[in-house]
């Protein structure tokens, strides 16, 4: 094909098994991550139909959503039971289904265990130019390594297990270019919050997005994972970033990444993937790094973004009537008043974790702010939940756990934790949480919980002062 192609088009074309008359394509899936919550019925379906998993070697199972983040073994090293019966049952189902279908399984007490979207890249299971799915909408995260990755439902999980394919229609393409240099104290989370704020929660619906520009190029792989993770929050099913030398350096030597000659072959192919100069996108959105500051959310949609130095917006200021309505409802739920300074908002809970911000760089950024400081008196619960056992071990090697514990944080076992109110970690009704996760929906962190999304450094800053705080001032004042 002589036409210049985007990264998305190249990956798509390399995975078409069959093109049907109406334009839908049977797309081959290279990588499938499975967790305990959305898989039981899929395995059950396979069993009922007498089917097998077509490519167990392309499938990896790990529990994360339901697992409590408290100790998993007692002092004698025996495994502790999960008290919630439904959660225990879902975990047991995965523990039984994985070996029964020949799928590799990382168990609840293995050091490699963690949030699926942290484990995939960390193990080198996620690779550039692959197609990847998981029964979870934040699968988009893996796009940071140049993998066309997206979330699917339980019926599709079963479909992929049985056939290693999905019937899909090609999406439109969007380029989101962020040029310039990020200012002091501005993190990848602030960049993606700025993007979600600009595009709106549905702005990317129907598109596969590619993040480009000098800010993305200069960003570490871990920062890129934070960006792609939230593609779904602006409506895009996938958020790609072109693989480059940083990607290869990150992946090289990871347990599941290709080795030896296979590695060289892989890199040679990966180098052909970036969008050709002059390739056309259906839509282009530009952001200037100079305009991006530390951000927080004020409402109950991730698009409700303001600079931390800003104020709670007046619902009347929105042009769209439905948005005015939604904003008024959000403010009532959040217990905020129009015009209130964001930095005056007091928080009782701090959550540093989730597949958005639980990797080692996130923990380093938060620890850097916390070093030698203590959480404020008004903070009742402060959790740090590493994204995987390996992240936890590395943080402990670096002594970060001591900084968190000395500052008054609880140092937990890996899992989804307070990102969603499905396991014991919750934000009490009516209380506020400064959270590094990706969704501030009503009830997301527990019934009645009020969530403010922000970066790990900003969450640490809020912990120290007990209110939403501009981390630049806190760091600058040292």
């Amino acid at each position, binding site marked *: 094909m002589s036409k210049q192609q985007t990264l998305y088009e190249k990956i798509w074309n390399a995975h078409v*098994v*069959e093109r049907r008359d109406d334009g839908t394509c*049977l797309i*081959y899936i*290279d990588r499938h991550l499975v967790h305990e919550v959305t898989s*039981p*019925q899929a395995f*059950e*379906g396979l069993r*009922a*139909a007498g*089917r097998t998993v*077509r*490519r*167990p*070697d*392309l499938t990896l199972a790990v529990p994360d959503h339901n697992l409590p983040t408290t100790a998993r073994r007692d002092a004698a090293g025996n495994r502790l039971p999960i008290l919630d019966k*439904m959660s225990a*049952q*879902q975990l047991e*189902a995965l523990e039984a289904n994985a070996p029964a279908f020949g799928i*590799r*399984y*990382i*168990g609840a007490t*293995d050091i*490699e265990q963690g949030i699926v979207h942290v484990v995939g890249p960390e*193990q*080198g*299971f996620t*690779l550039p130019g*692959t197609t990847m799915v998981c029964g979870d909408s934040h699968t988009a995260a893996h796009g940071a390594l140049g993998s066309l990755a997206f979330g699917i439902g339980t*019926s599709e999980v*079963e*479909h992929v297990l*049985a*056939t*290693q*394919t999905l*019937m899909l229609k090609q999406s439109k393409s969007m380029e989101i270019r962020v040029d310039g240099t990020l200012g002091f104290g501005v993190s990848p989370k602030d960049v993606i919050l700025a993007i979600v704020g600009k595009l709106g929660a549905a702005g990317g619906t129907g598109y596969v997005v590619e993040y480009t520009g000098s800010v993305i190029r200069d960003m570490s792989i871990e920062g890129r994972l934070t960006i792609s993770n939230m593609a779904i929050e602006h409506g895009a099913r996938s958020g790609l970033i072109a693989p480059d030398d940083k990607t290869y350096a990150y992946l090289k030597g990871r*347990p*599941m*990444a*290709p*080795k030896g000659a*296979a*590695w060289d*072959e*892989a890199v040679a*192919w990966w180098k052909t993937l970036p969008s050709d100069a002059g390739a056309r996108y259906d839509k282009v959105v530009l952001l200037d790094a100079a305009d991006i500051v530390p951000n927080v959310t004020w409402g109950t949609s991730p698009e409700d973004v303001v600079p931390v130095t800003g104020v709670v917006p007046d619902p009347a200021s929105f042009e769209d009537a439905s948005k005015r309505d939604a904003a008024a409802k959000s403010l009532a739920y959040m217990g905020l008043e129009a015009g209130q300074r964001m930095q005056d908002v007091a928080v009782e809970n701090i959550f540093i974790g989730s597949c958005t911000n639980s990797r080692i760089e996130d923990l380093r950024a938060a620890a850097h702010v916390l070093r030698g400081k203590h959480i404020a008196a008004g903070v009742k619960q402060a959790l740090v939940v590493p994204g995987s056992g390996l992240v936890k071990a590395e943080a402990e090697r670096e002594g970060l756990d001591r900084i968190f514990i000395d500052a008054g944080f609880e140092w937990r076992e890996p899992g989804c934790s307070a990102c969603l109110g499905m396991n014991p970690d919750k934000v009490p009704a009516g209380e506020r949480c400064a959270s590094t996760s990706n969704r501030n929906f009503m009830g997301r962190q527990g019934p009645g919980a009020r969530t403010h999304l922000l970066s790990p450094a900003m969450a640490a800053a809020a912990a120290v002062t007990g209110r939403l705080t501009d981390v630049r001032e806190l760091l600058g004042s040292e």
Partner: protein
Amino acid sequence: MEPVSVIEGKAYPLGLKNVDTDMIIAADWLKTISRSGLGVGAFEALRQDPDNVFDNPAYAGAPIVIAGDNFGCGSSREHAAWAMLDMGIRAVIAPSFSDIYSSNAFKNGILTVVLPQEAVDRLLEVAQTDPIHVDLDSQTVTTPFQDRFTFEIDPFRKQCLINGLDEIGLTLTSDAHIASYEKKVASERPWVSGEKSHESLAV
């Protein structure tokens, strides 16, 4: 899914209109980790009535339900179809169905037969005492009393049902394509494959 061509036997003469999916399977049952085993919970609320058709030994194990208008309305839960399949239902006859229910039923190999109210009334009467015969191939419902009603069905769905093809089954008809794609990738990008790339994982 099991192929469907002839469904014959007793039929539950339910007759009720607007049977919603909450009635078919209550929300409490959605916490399950399984699609099967939901049959015991099916039509729980209706079964509170001691005279309900589902617990009447005369209809025990019937593969057909005869119902009123708008069967399967309400929540989109696929559990409703799972529960009915689990209790052995393979066909539902009614004057109309909710779209979501009929699509869920179809995915699970349950035939939804749309017949005019008069036909449904006649079948409700016959079902009190005698079996009903549903033939998908000729698209007819017949009784031992020379009743013969024809019904419409989407040709694609008919093919899927007769051949026992669910969406996964359908994709598996492309198995040769999938296999040749895999062969191509195995030679062009062997490192994508699991055998090589994962051998060093120690878990």
